[in-house]
């Protein structure tokens, strides 16, 4: 009975979904052996089948899903596939628990937290009344919920996202389950909150000896949390290994590609281009007969297309599904890349063969060949402010009071030179997006001044001149919504050409094709519609549309955060390349510090409507920095299991922008608060080396000496 040593033992699991009268195998030949107390990470991009695996392991597939015969699934020695639904329900109540990605949707909005949690206890152990309440309080204490009695009395919407996720974790762990399945539990949260939750999970799981299947797309989270990793691609296991082995010596080209396409903290566009995996995952409706990764693989050989590689045991608990695993990471891998860590930036002409130097001269009028980079000030914002008015409540109407507005952006000064990239970081709710919308003119400002090339810029985009509009463009976060589903790619790109640059329709069509080429899309894409494009392709079209008017500044609001890792790096490379060729400046907003660090020249850190630090991007990860920046940087889950920093954990509640803290806005969460001065006086701007500005009461020398532990970047240098 070797199998009984494993809590979960799954073999040859194949899961299909019925879609429009066809059964589509979403997960094929899955295997998993999970020892008690082990944490295994399931990594994959969207569509890789990782959530399907989670549901299949619980036998909780949706009504159009089924497990194909031939597989086996054992839990604690018992065959799960033969169990009745009633038996499964008993298992779900106590021994197998699930933590979903979206805690807000998982909690019933109309039942108080306390009742929801004690109900799970009743289902699991039949415990009710004061005893259940007692257990719940203990559990809430374990998940570090502040003021547990009050939390129990609240409804889900009254809690922050981080607190909601703590509640679902408490609900899952309260019955002491043997198996916990977590489906991207921190994906919707801010980095700071994510760091806190991961920390909490690590401790809780270690204490309890629970086995965990942790599903995520984030390699950093895997590196920080898991012992073993399974890499899924297009429904198949590509590789399985211990976390140390996997990151040190990946044995599958896909794993290698994934690991090297994530920008590491401190990696910057100046040094090397990011690696990326070309192409898109195969459609599950037409699974290739050979290796599923063959089309995108840099090591592809004839055999890969002909014969499907088996999941091979490589010894020492390692598995890989690759004909050529022994060559991965040893032979010089990717075709076009010179070294594993990327290669030096090449001349843009040589890099994109589609743009010959002739072309670049011919269209001189369009400005593509012109480089605008200079020290000339492109954009200057002075005391930029946006206050959203709040409707008066009845008591305020009776008391003739004005409610205080929401201060989304509260006095921001910015300067951006031509051709530069300004990265703007901060948690959600810090006002980044509002600031971007003020600059682009989608929101009217409440105060302050905005100048582009020394000229005053009007509030609303409607009141701005056509010339000004063509100079300011935007790339949006969600590629799904940024293209009109009823307009073809050609129509989407030619419109700004006609509208903002006065092209004749025929010339606009030709130019649209040229633009497509510049974002590395084939000309045949011109007649496609958005629903025929992948997320990365949509974002390329959106980028082409933004560049069509030959803008001086492009506001990029989280342009890669909705994309998969392997696609994300290609889009980042494209943005860097276009900027090189074209000289546009970027205002680049992201919550992902590594991404911002890669692309930006200057980074500004925003918190509750104000900037707290501005400085050269290369220096940002180095001390001294503002305590808030320090917390953000330390919260980044680094995709390297050997990396450990002392994490600075912030409480997960951002104060309300309607009721701001006095003095320094950050004092309520600041781990380095020095005393009463932080609560009463606004901190001064302090100037550091190389034009670095930090707004803090603590002198910079003191910050530097206390931040020795913060050495994330530059270790490689």
């Amino acid at each position, binding site marked *: 009975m070797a199998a009984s040593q494993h809590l979960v033992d799954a073999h040859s699991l194949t899961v299909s979904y019925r879609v429009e009268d066809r059964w589509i195998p979403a997960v094929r030949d899955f295997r998993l052996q999970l020892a008690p107390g082990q944490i295994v990470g399931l990594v994959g991009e969207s569509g890789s089948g990782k959530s399907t695996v989670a549901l299949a392991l619980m036998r909780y597939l949706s009504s159009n899903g089924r497990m194909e015969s031939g597989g086996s699934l054992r839990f604690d020695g018992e065959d799960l596939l033969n169990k009745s639904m009633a038996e499964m329900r008993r298992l779900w109540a106590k021994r197998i628990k699930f933590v979903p990605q979206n805690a807000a949707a998982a909690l019933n909005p109309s039942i108080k937290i306390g009742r929801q949690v004690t109900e799970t206890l009743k289902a699991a152990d039949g415990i009710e009344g004061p005893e259940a309440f007692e257990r719940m309080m203990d559990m809430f204490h374990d998940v570090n919920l502040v003021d547990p009695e009050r939390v129990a009395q609240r409804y889900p919407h009254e809690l922050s996202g981080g607190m909601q996720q703590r509640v679902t974790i408490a609900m899952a762990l309260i019955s002491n389950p043997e198996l916990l399945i977590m489906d991207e539990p921190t994906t919707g949260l801010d980095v700071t909150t994510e760091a806190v939750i991961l920390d909490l999970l690590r401790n809780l799981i270690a204490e309890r000896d629970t086995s965990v299947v942790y599903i995520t797309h984030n390699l950093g989270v895997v590196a920080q949390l898991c012992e073993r990793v399974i890499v899924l691609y297009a429904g198949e296991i590509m590789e399985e290994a211990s976390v140390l082995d996997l990151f040190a010596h990946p044995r599958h080209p896909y794993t290698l590609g994934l690991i090297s396409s994530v920008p590491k903290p401190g990696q910057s566009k100046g040094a090397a281009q990011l690696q990326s995996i070309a192409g898109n995952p195969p459609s599950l409706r037409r699974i290739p007969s050979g290796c599923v990764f063959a089309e995108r693989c840099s090591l592809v050989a004839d055999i890969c297309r002909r014969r499907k590689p088996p999941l091979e045991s490589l010894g020492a608990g390692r598995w890989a599904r690759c004909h050529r695993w022994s060559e991965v990471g040893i032979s010089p891998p990717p075709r076009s890349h010179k070294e594993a860590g990327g290669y030096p930036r090449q001349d843009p002409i040589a890099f994109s063969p589609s743009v010959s130097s002739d072309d670049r001269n011919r269209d001189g009028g369009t400005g593509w060949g012109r480089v605008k980079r200079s020290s000339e000030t492109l954009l200057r914002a002075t005391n930029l402010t946006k206050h959203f008015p709040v409707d008066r409540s009845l008591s305020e109407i009776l008391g003739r009071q004005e409610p205080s507005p929401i201060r989304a952006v509260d006095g921001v000064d910015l300067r951006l030179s031509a051709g530069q990239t300004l990265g703007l970081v901060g948690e959600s709710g810090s006002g980044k997006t509002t600031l971007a919308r003020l600059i682009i003119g989608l929101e009217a400002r409440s105060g302050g001044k905005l100048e582009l090339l020394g000229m005053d810029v009007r509030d609303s985009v409607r009141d701005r001149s056509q010339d000004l509009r063509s100079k300011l463009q935007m790339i949006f976060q969600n590629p799904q*919504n940024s293209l009109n589903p009823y307009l*073809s790619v050609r129509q989407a790109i030619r*419109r700004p050409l006609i509208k903002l640059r006065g092209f004749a329709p025929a010339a606009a069509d030709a130019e649209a094709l040229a633009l497509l080429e510049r974002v590395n899309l084939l000309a045949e894409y011109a*007649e496609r*519609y958005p629903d025929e494009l992948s997320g990365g392709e949509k974002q390329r079209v959106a980028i082409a*549309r933004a560049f069509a*008017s030959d803008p001086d500044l492009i506001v990029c609001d989280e342009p890669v955060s909705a994309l998969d890792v392997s696609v994300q790096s290609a889009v980042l490379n494209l943005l860097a390349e276009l900027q090189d060729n074209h000289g546009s400046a970027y205002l680049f907003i992201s919550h992902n510090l590594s991404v911002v660090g890669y692309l930006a020249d200057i980074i500004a850190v925003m918190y509750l409507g104000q900037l707290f630090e501005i400085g050269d991007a290369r220096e940002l990860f180095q001390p001294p920095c503002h305590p808030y920046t320090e917390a953000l940087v330390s919260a980044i889950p680094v995709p390297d299991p050997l990396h450990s920093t002392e994490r600075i954990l912030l409480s997960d509640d951002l104060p309300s922008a309607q009721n701001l803290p006095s003095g320094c806005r950050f004092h309520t969460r600041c781990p380095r608060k020095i005393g009463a001065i932080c609560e009463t006086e606004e901190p001064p701007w302090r100037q550091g080396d190389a034009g670095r500005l930090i707004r803090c009461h603590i002198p910079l020398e003191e910050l530097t000496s206390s931040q020795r532990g913060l050495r994330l970047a530059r270790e490689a240098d």
Partner: protein
Amino acid sequence: MRLIADSRHYAAFERLARSQLRHPQSAVGTLLVAVFLILALFGPQLAPHPNPNDQSHDVRRPPTLDLGRLHLGEHPFGTDRLGRDVYSRVILGAGSIFQIAGLGTLISVALGSALGLFMGYQGGWVDEIIGRIIDALLAIPALLLALVLIGIIRNLDFDAGSWQAALADNVILLVISLLYIPIVARVARSTTLDIKTREFVEAAQIRGESQPYIIFREILPSVIPSLVVEASLRFSYAIFLVASLGFLGFGARPPSPDWGLMVNENRGGFYQLTPWALEFPALAIAILVIAVNLMSDGIRRAVQKGS
């Protein structure tokens, strides 16, 4: 491979057709609507006695229809007390009901969606004021409002041949259009509110597109699916309303072969004499309303799946 722009609309239609076929109820509904549509278009050619007021037959002849032998006979639905062929009158009646209900639906969808798009995109006090007026109108039962409007318009005196008189002649069409404009506007408005926050609309604003361009080129295409669903729903209500008005005597005037009117003319004491003269037009109304509803269910299902 769909490479041509026009094929896209074809593909959407194909998807709709396939989804209709997958659900037998909607397939039956669509088929029945198609049959009625053929009757409406080619009624005079299909009816054995194309003159609806042809009283040359024997009076009160029972139906000769024999479903078992699939045999129609001389007067499949019998004749009424004036000696008119009920079968022919039911066939001829399809035309007027499709004309009034269909045209009324089209007018209300066209005007209502324009209004709704404008309200939804504009927002602010414009939306607030029009929205309140719509709420007030919707608070009055549709049939009651229709009766009041018809009563008022019919009592006005117009010079023969003037446009007002022409309008008064088509009073039912006018009333149906007016009644459904606010309802359609509400649907168009709520979809517009959703679409206008999408980023492609903001991209158009950043380009400085005019308001009509944004409303009609960027937003309208995404609103059309919900308008199609609403239109099919409105159509079924409109059929019911036309029949109700006919029955109440506010619709078509005798001797027109209006189904509602036929039911009205043959109720009471006449029902004992010629039950078939009431039952067949009533059945026609019921089948058509149910068929349109089944069809619109199918359309809604297909559209929701597609989005």
